[in-house]
């Protein structure tokens, strides 16, 4: 049964994509939307059926399907094989269910776009590639999906290709993730060389056996980490994600918030046993995650573009997940991944609807007072915002963030034998991040939905777009109650689901830890209300005098750096070498040779000419000379005769 259903899970969106691409221009917008939603919908149903099968089966292991051998050469065997275990099950459910909701929304959102076939073709292809990534039980097979989602992301960011800014944003995203992909590929090469297989299970087993030297494990983990950082837009690769907002909003929701950017988190969670043996890389992951979450939150605080605020917030939330991964609590990372997919998709979709009805205005300071015009959207956005901020008890974000915070508090990094690093500073940063998160997202809420009216809202949100918003709101509010801290009614469904053998220990969790985690977002909400929420707000914008704000607002600091360090030198070198130096040299040599031979030819011809001229000249002159004797004058002839006679006589006499 599972042997059929598991490939079918991937095949349905793929088939929908092919149908949509091939019949482009012949099907109406409605039909295209229906086909795409049906493809993803069947997948969603199948994933639920498969999850039930998995959970009702024996606890250990998962559903394994080997489709066909990919390559078998001496030293490497790779298969196209899928595994549905508990980790991938969570991810598959998120991808298909959130994906389905976003597809339904997009069927309404993109209704009037002429390129709707291309849009849905890419979206369904993306879902298929993402499912390959998630289900793959072989790292090489995972890499197909890994690059496939990158390709779809590229195509969708540059969807409105008439504007060069969009296509250049798309290229930027692809190049930056491609750098990470190459690092990941190097990691795969290293693991394949050391273990002879890329099957995740056997790779992890041979790492656990100690068949890899410690340095090898560290380097492999570092390579994989770089790949994951690039895909998930963490420091130092964060620059592509805000630009990626050039794509249609459903794309931003599906690819650049809920699923693709979390692929890095998923990958590390998948190989967490490998990372557990590479302590320095773990510490690096945690530190980079903490830095990213702080940087993302600070940058989001000074943005004025609604979608960019959400993009920076995504970067920041992914930072939380990397922090959790670095601290070894990958269950918490996956939990936050799931709740984040709910509330960030909700925020993006709501923002898309708001922007659409407000006449494609994305600047939050020109929007404003939309609460009265669109109460439903306001409610949805507030639900998403409070989940993002993690308002205590009533939102899903609270529980997942709480799980990360308590995990970070307990961690100790054993970097060297005598030298351990406590996780408390990281916990402090994460708590500060929670405060800032509430601050920036409620700044956005208060400015856009309260206060003076800005742009006029037009039209209505269609039912097709409304239903997904309702579903996502419910999920973002109540999707988190499956896992609670011990202080509250102790409930650990999610971690028991992921790892039934060894549940996380929450035993020594002080109460004030949970309290701090609950108070930070409330404090952020309060400060945001004071600054921006009251009828006469304390400030419209954060004061712009400080020199750090302006570069931070555009998010250009890193861009400028990249531009200086990579792009410009590359352009310069490419410009310098555009003529192909060896080609130029050889052409030059050829030209020189030709010039030389032409010169020699010229010299030779000149010489011969000169000689010939001289010869003829001499001959003519020589011929001319005797002519002088025949001048027709008798006395000259007589003189010649007399002279000759004299000479002859003289010779005869003298000899």
């Amino acid at each position, binding site marked *: 049964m599972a042997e059929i259903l598991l490939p079918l899970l991937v095949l349905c969106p793929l088939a929908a994509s092919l149908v949509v691409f091939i019949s482009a221009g012949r099907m109406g917008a409605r039909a295209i939307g229906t086909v795409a939603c049906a493809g993803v919908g069947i997948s969603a149903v199948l994933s639920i059926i498969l999850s039930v099968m998995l959970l009702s089966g024996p606890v250990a292991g998962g559903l394994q399907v080997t489709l066909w051998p*990919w390559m078998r050469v001496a*030293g490497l065997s790779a298969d196209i094989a899928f595994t549905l275990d508990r980790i991938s099950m969570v991810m598959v459910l998120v991808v298909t269910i959130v994906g389905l909701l976003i597809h339904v929304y997009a069927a309404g959102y993109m209704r009037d776009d002429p390129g709707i076939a291309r849009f849905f073709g890419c979206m369904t292809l993306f879902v298929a590639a993402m499912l390959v990534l998630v289900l793959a039980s072989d790292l090489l097979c995972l890499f197909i999906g890994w690059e*496939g989602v990158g390709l779809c992301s590229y195509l969708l960011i540059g969807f409105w290709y008439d504007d060069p800014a969009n296509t250049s944003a798309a290229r930027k995203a692809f190049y930056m993730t491609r750098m990470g992909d190459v690092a990941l590929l190097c990691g795969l090469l290293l693991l394949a060389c050391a273990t002879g297989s890329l099957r995740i299970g056997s790779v992890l087993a041979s790492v656990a056996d100690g068949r890899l030297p410690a340095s090898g494990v560290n380097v492999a983990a570092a390579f994989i980490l770089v790949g994951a950082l690039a895909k998930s837009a963490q420091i130092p690769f964060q620059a592509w994600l805000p630009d990626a907002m050039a794509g249609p909003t459903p794309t931003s929701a599906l690819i650049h918030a809920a699923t693709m950017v979390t692929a890095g988190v998923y990958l590390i969670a998948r190989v967490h046993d490998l990372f557990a043996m590479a302590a320095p890389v773990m510490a690096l992951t945690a530190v980079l995650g903490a830095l990213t979450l702080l940087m993302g939150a600070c940058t989001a605080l000074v943005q004025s573009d609604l979608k960019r605020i959400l993009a920076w917030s995504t970067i920041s939330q992914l930072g939380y997940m990397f922090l959790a991964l670095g601290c070894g609590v990958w269950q918490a990372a996956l939990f936050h991944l799931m709740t984040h997919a709910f509330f960030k998709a909700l925020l993006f979709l709501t923002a898309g609807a708001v922007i659409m009805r407000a006449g494609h205005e994305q600047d939050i300071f020109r929007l404003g007072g939309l609460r009265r015009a669109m109460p439903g959207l306001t409610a949805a956005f507030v639900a998403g915002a409070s989940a993002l901020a993690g308002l205590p008890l009533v939102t899903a974000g609270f529980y997942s963030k709480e799980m990360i915070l308590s995990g970070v508090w307990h961690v100790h990094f054993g970097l060297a034998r005598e030298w351990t690093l406590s996780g408390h500073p990281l916990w402090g940063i994460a708590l500060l991040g929670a405060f800032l998160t509430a601050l920036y997202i409620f700044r956005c809420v208060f400015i856009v939905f309260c206060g003076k009216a800005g742009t006029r809202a037009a039209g209505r949100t269609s039912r097709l777009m409304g239903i997904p918003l309702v579903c996502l709101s419910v999920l973002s509010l109540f999707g988190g109650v499956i896992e609670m801290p011990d202080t509250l009614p102790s409930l650990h469904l999610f971690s028991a689901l992921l790892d039934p053998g060894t549940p996380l220990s929450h035993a020594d969790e002080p109460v004030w830890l949970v309290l701090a985690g609950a108070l930070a977002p409330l404090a952020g909400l309060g400060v945001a209300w004071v600054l921006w929420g009251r009828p006469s707000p304390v400030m419209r914008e954060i004061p712009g005098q400080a020199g750090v704000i302006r570069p931070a607002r555009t998010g250009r600091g890193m861009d400028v750096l990249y531009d200086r360090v990579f792009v410009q030198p590359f352009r310069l070198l*490419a410009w310098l*070498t*555009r003529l192909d130096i060896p080609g130029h040299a050889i052409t030059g040599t050829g030209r020189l040779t030709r010039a030389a031979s032409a010169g020699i030819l010229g010299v030779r011809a000149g010489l011969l000419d000169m000689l010939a001229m001289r010869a003829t000249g001499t001959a003519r002159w020589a011929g001319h000379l005797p002519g002088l004797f025949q001048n027709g004058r008798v006395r000259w002839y007589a003189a010649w005769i007399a002279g000759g006679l004299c000479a002859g006589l003289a010779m005869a006499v003298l000899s």
Partner: protein
Amino acid sequence: MNPLPVLVLLPIMGGGLAWGAGRMWPRASPSMRDASWWVVLATLVVETLVLAMATFSHRAHAGPWPGHFAMPWIPAMGIAVRLDMDGLSLSLIWLSLILCFLCVLLATRQATAHAGAFRFLFLATLTGVIGTFLATDLFVFFFFWELMLVPMAGLIAAWGHEDRQRAAMKFFMFTQGSGLVMLLSILGLVITHYRQTGVLTFDYFTLAHTSLSPTGAMLLMLGFFIAFAVKLPVVPVHVWLPDAHTQAPTAASVLLAGILLKTGGYGMIRFNVMLFPDAAARFAPIAMGLGVAGILYGAWLSSAQDDVKRLIAYSSISHMGFVLLGIFAGSRMGMLGAVMQMLAHGLGTAALFLIAGAIQDRLHTRDMHRIGGLWAAMPRLSSAGLFFAMAALGMPGLGNFTGEFLVLLATWRISPLLATLAATGLVLAAIYALRMVNRIFLAAPQADTRPVTDLPSWQMAVFACVMAFLVLLGLYPQPFMIFSAPLPLPATAMAGPGGTTP
């Protein structure tokens, strides 16, 4: 009937017929297919049937490999027409035929003047290529090696674009000159063998047993290497390639990129690595360095070009760098990767050249600044272009990735540093491929585009077959890897392919 000599002779005879038919019944209107076109198609169909026979029927014979044919030619000098076929030659001949079909079906619009002569030269090149892939007598090999060169130079010189004479001259000089070095090497090997055994022969299998001093082997191997390096091409001697590819008519570009470059890779496997395994192993670090240089340099220059065909030509140099790297990686894995890369690159690049040719037919320019976005006007052509650009940048799941991955893995075992550098080429590949996509296909349309016609659906179906084949190579390469593996020399010979490190 032995299929091997038929395989070699059929194309050139068909070409002669096509020429005659073209002179006897010149076409009435440019759009109509004339008699000579049908003759060419019939020749290719018969050739395919013969090849299928050679592939699937196994006859008993004296040769070491599945296919064998021998006939004395100049007995006094030990020269005989010896043809042998193993999986490597067979798969490359299949590739040649597929590409010829593509050319005949899709790239016929450019050769309007003297179409018969064009087709004769086209098929004569095919004869030379197939002969090169089959010959196991070194003299006959050299004969076919030169034979494929002359008609190709003629095709470029007579039917090419604006700067065709210079390009044809450059192409001819480079390949001819390097061919002479190879001839010297062949003679040197034969004479050494004659001195040792007193037998004068050009037979590949016999010569493989010649015992050589390390220096002598290195010198002889370098002679072969230079000829193949020019053809492949390896970086410092790649200069002829961008000009020749750019100036050639579409069909000739396809043949050049799709097959003629592969003769270089084929020669390196067959003659450098299998004939002189020790010398090749000692030379391997330099060759691999050259391969990595080719990958990076080709990709780098490719991303600075504005001429579409030139961009594709430089990307070929980059891809062929992987082939060189794989051949000299010294393991069977690298060899297989190189072969897979040759097959996938043959298909993908040929399709890209066909698309560039189709664009030039319609817009009369190859300058990417002047082409502008074509997606709105020509969605079919653009989507095909997008697909093959993705194949060129090494998208996993398509054929190129299989080859590149195997080559990189084989390289990583020897030197992780070289493998990392070569993998960096994949980032550069993304740069040139996406630059092309965002200039030509997914871009704002030019203001002054004339109305253009998209590819008709039957042509799109042909492209779809190529795409399906690339996907197959990418997702299920195992049968092809078994099928196209180069067979080792017979057991008495020195070592298997690679034969360098255990």
